[in-house]
């Protein structure tokens, strides 16, 4: 048992446990806070996979941005005082069967395939510089399109959310 193994299983249990709470919790606030731990565990995976820039990005955008947005959404669309925060489930049985079948299929495929994987590739010590170079050379077109998408999303979200109800 080396350190990598211990940390991997710690983050794996954190991710799957928090993911289970997100999915099965009846209280939407509990689900939102469990999502925090799931995102955090995924950031831990990124560190284990030597993606340091991605790990920080995950923490800043998911934990610092998207999760705050989600919690704002929960607070603004639910009556905090009443028990209306609870959220039910529909079609539980078919969904359980379908999801379990999907999980079994995916795990079976991942298990049985020979991925020809090797951990011997030399990864750069830090990935920030290489990622920046790739974004401005090989991936410059998707990079520019992504910036336009973000601008459109920003303007659109502001417009949709601020539109006043016509009486």
């Amino acid at each position, binding site marked *: 048992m080396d350190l*990598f193994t211990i940390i*991997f299983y710690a983050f*794996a249990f954190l*991710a*799957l446990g928090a*993911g*289970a709470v*997100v*999915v099965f919790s009846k209280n*939407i606030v509990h*689900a939102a806070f469990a*999502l925090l731990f*799931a*995102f955090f565990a*995924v950031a831990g*995976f*990124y560190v284990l*996979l030597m*993606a340091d*820039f*991605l790990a920080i990005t*995950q923490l800043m955008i*998911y934990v610092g*941005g*998207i999760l705050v*947005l*989600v919690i704002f*959404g929960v607070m*603004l*669309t639910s009556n905090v005082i009443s028990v209306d925060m609870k*959220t039910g*489930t*529909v*079609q539980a049985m078919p*969904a*359980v069967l379908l*999801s379990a079948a*999907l999980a079994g299929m*995916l795990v079976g495929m*991942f298990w049985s395939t020979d*991925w020809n*994987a*090797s*951990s011997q*590739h030399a*990864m750069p010590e830090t*990935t920030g510089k*290489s*990622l920046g170079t*790739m974004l401005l050379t090989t*991936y410059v077109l998707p990079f520019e399109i*992504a910036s336009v*998408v*973000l601008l459109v*999303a*920003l303007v659109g*979200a502001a417009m*949709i*959310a601020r*539109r006043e109800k016509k009486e």
Partner: protein
Amino acid sequence: MQEFLNWLRTPGLTHFLIVSGILFSFGVFAVLTRRNAIMVLMGIELILNAANINFIAFSRYSTGTLDGQVIAIFVIILAAAEAAIALAIVLNIYQNFNTVNVDELNRLRD
């Protein structure tokens, strides 16, 4: 049995893929069963995170280049845009219909 224990003891590509596959199924389950629109969004975020783990795991174990990480950055960008737009729509729906139950939202106008 001993072989399986040894496999468990040395995390590699398959371990990361299996965790991400289970996380993906959790997300699909949330999208399928939840009635609250924001819970559906949380399920989508779980799905996107599971996909990102796959991209980065393959980038680490399969090719040794950083292409997978660049794709993961684009996935995160799209997730941020999607979350902002979707929550704006949900808030607007709540103002107009006073509910975020996706089963009751079956019309686009008041």
